[in-house]
């Protein structure tokens, strides 16, 4: 699917060195630890710089203005959280509004506008609101604002992108001066994480017009908004998180051409960009004063072997094709080594429910040949549809095509343009490629793409046992049991599913070294869209 809608991903693995020096460890501690880890060959000089830098990083500076360029900006830019579709919309809305909860680096929910969210049966949730929170126009945050903000998604006239998520909510009402009770239509233990979705940011009660002004409780106030041109926000002096934000002003623009975006960064016109192509990272890292940040997300580009009654629904054929994917080669050739290897199931290593015990499927043309013979695949060419709309799919398809003769298969790559790919080709051919953005919860992925009645069941895969497990896990409050059920589901998809998932993609951001504080939230780049309040400018 397009990079466009959702925002979720996998945990970035920081190196031990970074972890040590980030905590401000003294040189001696760090060296000791490194020796213990057998990494004593790291030069002491590097460590000197790193440990002094740790002290500099500890104290954020206030003030400064930055300009951020995202990959897209069009006349469909919006100030309405319900309509957010692209990274630029999520960044914009996260600057102006706050939500009840927010995501942390492990894709768990931290409290934001809510101080606590409790439940007895994972069906009725009681959220206590933070006292003393003000909107930008001075009005205090009340339960009525929360009720309005959540219930408006159910109204078809709002055309909310999160309507399917909001349909899970059957009722929201104020149950106290600072308390809201949310009743779901079915038990869902992931609800606090769902509330952290950028579509559920809290707006003022009764707001219908989002064309010119936006009043929220977020770290920045809207100063100027011109869809397709730029958005300018200024610091909210009364932000409910004390000491934040650090910056005075942020200007958000869109530069769709990737080379132009990188050039704008390197010439100093912008300070932060996202969606950097792996091919540009060498240039950026080679220029002093700039850095690249990799966020390992759970986004994947998958080979869809759709069950339409033909050979692509045959499990032996599917297994054969899965074995034909040279995952390491794809990661190196297509993404310059960025990303993590996948195992034909959708849960990324960064997700807390990732089942590590699943043996990694390897590139094995002989096994593929065996499976193809078993399935009775002839030598008639099979067409696989790929497009730049699904990141890396064209290159992956070409690599697959080159490996196919080793297993006696004849593949033809049909490269189609990006425009209209999702309406015309995705899920419309026996073999095609898709691109699914990361989701914060395993349940969302399973519900939207793998359940028998899933709206985007790419491979047309129906397994009643899977559906049962999904419902059982959704309402299971015990973490260990949930993890076990999700582990079994991953094994099920790995063995019986119809998708080839060779790897999980990383999101690359680049910035000037003067911009500090940019972390990684495995949802998407730019710190899950929430970088604005955390970053500061060194002099």
């Amino acid at each position, binding site marked *: *699917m*397009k990079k*466009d*809608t*959702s925002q979720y991903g996998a945990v970035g693995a920081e190196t031990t060195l970074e972890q040590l020096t980030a905590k401000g460890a003294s040189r001696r501690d760090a060296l000791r630890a490194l020796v213990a880890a057998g990494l004593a060959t790291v030069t002491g000089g590097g460590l000197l710089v790193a440990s002094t830098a740790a002290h500099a990083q500890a104290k954020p500076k206030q003030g400064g203005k930055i300009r951020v*360029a995202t990959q897209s900006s*069009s*006349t*469909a*830019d*919006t100030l309405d959280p319900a*309509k957010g*579709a692209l990274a630029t919309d999520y960044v914009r809305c996260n600057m102006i509004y706050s939500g009840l909860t927010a995501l942390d680096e492990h894709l768990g929910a931290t409290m934001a506008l809510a101080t606590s969210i409790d439940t007895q049966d994972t069906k009725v949730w009681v959220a206590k609101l933070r006292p003393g929170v003000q909107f930008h126009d001075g009005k205090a945050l009340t339960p009525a604002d929360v009720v309005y903000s959540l219930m408006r998604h159910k109204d*078809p*006239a709002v*055309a*909310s*992108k*999160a*309507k*399917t998520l909001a349909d899970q909510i059957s009722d929201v009402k104020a149950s106290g001066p600072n308390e809201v009770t949310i009743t779901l239509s079915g038990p869902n233990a992931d609800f606090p994480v769902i509330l952290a979705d950028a579509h559920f940011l809290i707006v003022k009660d009764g707001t219908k017009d989002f*064309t010119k002004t936006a009043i929220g409780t977020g770290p920045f106030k809207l100063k100027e908004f*011109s*869809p*397709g*041109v730029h958005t300018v926000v200024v610091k909210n002096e009364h932000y409910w998180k004390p000491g934040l934000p650090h910056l005075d002003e942020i200007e958000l*623009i*869109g*530069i*769709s*051409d990737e*080379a*132009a975006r990188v*050039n*704008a960064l*390197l*010439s*100093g*016109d*912008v300070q932060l960009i996202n969606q950097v192509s792996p091919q540009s990272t060498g240039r950026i890292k080679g220029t002093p004063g700039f850095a690249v940040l990799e966020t390992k997300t759970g986004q994947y580009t998958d080979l869809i072997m759709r069950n339409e009654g033909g050979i692509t629904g045959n499990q032996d054929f599917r297994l054969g094709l899965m074995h034909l994917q040279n995952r390491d080669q794809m990661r190196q050739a297509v993404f310059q080594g960025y990303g993590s290897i996948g195992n034909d199931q959708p849960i990324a290593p960064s997700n807390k429910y990732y089942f590590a015990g699943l043996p990694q499927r390897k590139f094995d043309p002989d096994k593929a040949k065996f499976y193809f013979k078993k399935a009775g695949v002839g030598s008639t060419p099979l067409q696989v549809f790929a497009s730049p709309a699904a990141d890396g799919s064209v290159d992956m398809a070409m690599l697959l095509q080159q490996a196919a003769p080793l297993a006696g298969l004849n593949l033809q790559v049909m490269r189609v343009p990006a*425009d*209209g790919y*999702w*309406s*015309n080709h995705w899920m419309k051919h026996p073999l095609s490629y898709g691109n699914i953005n990361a989701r914060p919860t395993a349940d969302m992925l399973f519900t939207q793409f793998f359940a028998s009645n899933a*709206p*985007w069941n790419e491979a047309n895969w129906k397994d009643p046992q899977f559906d049962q497990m999904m419902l059982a896990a959704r309402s299971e409050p015990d973490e260990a049991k949930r993890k076990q059920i999700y582990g079994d589901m991953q094994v099920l998809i790995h063995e019986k599913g119809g998708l080839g998932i060779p790897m999980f993609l990383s999101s690359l951001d680049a910035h000037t070294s003067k911009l500090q504080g940019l972390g990684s939230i495995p949802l998407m780049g730019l710190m899950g869209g929430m970088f604005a309040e955390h970053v500061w400018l060194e002099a």
Partner: protein
Amino acid sequence: MKRQAYRLIASRLGLALLTLLIVSAIVFAMTGLLPGDAAQEALGQAATPEAVAALRHQLGLDQPALQRYLQWLFHIVSGNFGMSLSNSLPVSELIATRLPNSLMLAGLTTVVAVPVALAIGILSAMYRGSLLDRALNLLTLSTVAVPEFLVATIAVLIFAVNLHWLPALSYLSSVSSFSDLVRIYAMPVMTLCCVLIAQMARMTRAAVLDQLNSGYVEMASLKGASQVRIVLRHVLPNAIGPIANAVALSLSYLFGGVVIVESIFNYPGLASLMVDAVTNRDMPLVQGCVMVFCAAYLALVLLADLCQIISNPRLRQR
């Protein structure tokens, strides 16, 4: 001459209106043929059939195409360009914010490109066959052969990233003095000039050469007039017809064809507005932009014809 000019302008305006009408119908039909519509594009991945139907009804897209077109036509005649489907802002407002930018870029490019092209064309014609002529020819042809995104990207790499002389983005909010203006517009204008100069220069050269072969030029040089006087005083007024036409055709590209330059330099002009509108299947905005481009083109062609009439006394008398 005045009466003739008025007659020409009046008939041209009539034809222009007819052309605008036909173009609007064609564009409406073509955009309607594209897969998907504004409601589907707006909802993206969240496009369940009920959501799409509800949004379509809200936007008025469930009415038959002919009815929507006639409605739009009716509104346009009363000056109402309608509302953009993707962000509910009036189309006239969206165009009004971008039109001055496009005009500014087009104007600056014209001011630079036309004199340079004329000079190159005239010099090539005057010294035809010489080294200067051949060198100028080679130069203009090679600049027009290189794609403009390559010229723009290389220019940005050299002047912005390596030398830091010019900004990589044409940022309009930071224009506070003339030197700022020059710095900001230098690269976009240069890129566009590379595209335009060759056409105009070669047309000028051909037109002037054509005239230089005629009898009155021979007479003038026998009388002892200098080359420069011959060209400027005798030849140019006769050559202005084809030159003006070439210039008008080239300049009309400056409105709608500069989408690549606008994208690379992040310049908020009409061309990128149009591309956005098509991507979002935002019909009223597409139609609005098309009307503006069409009107601009027709105005330029009219100016070219007027130039031709003014310069030619024979046409004036009629």
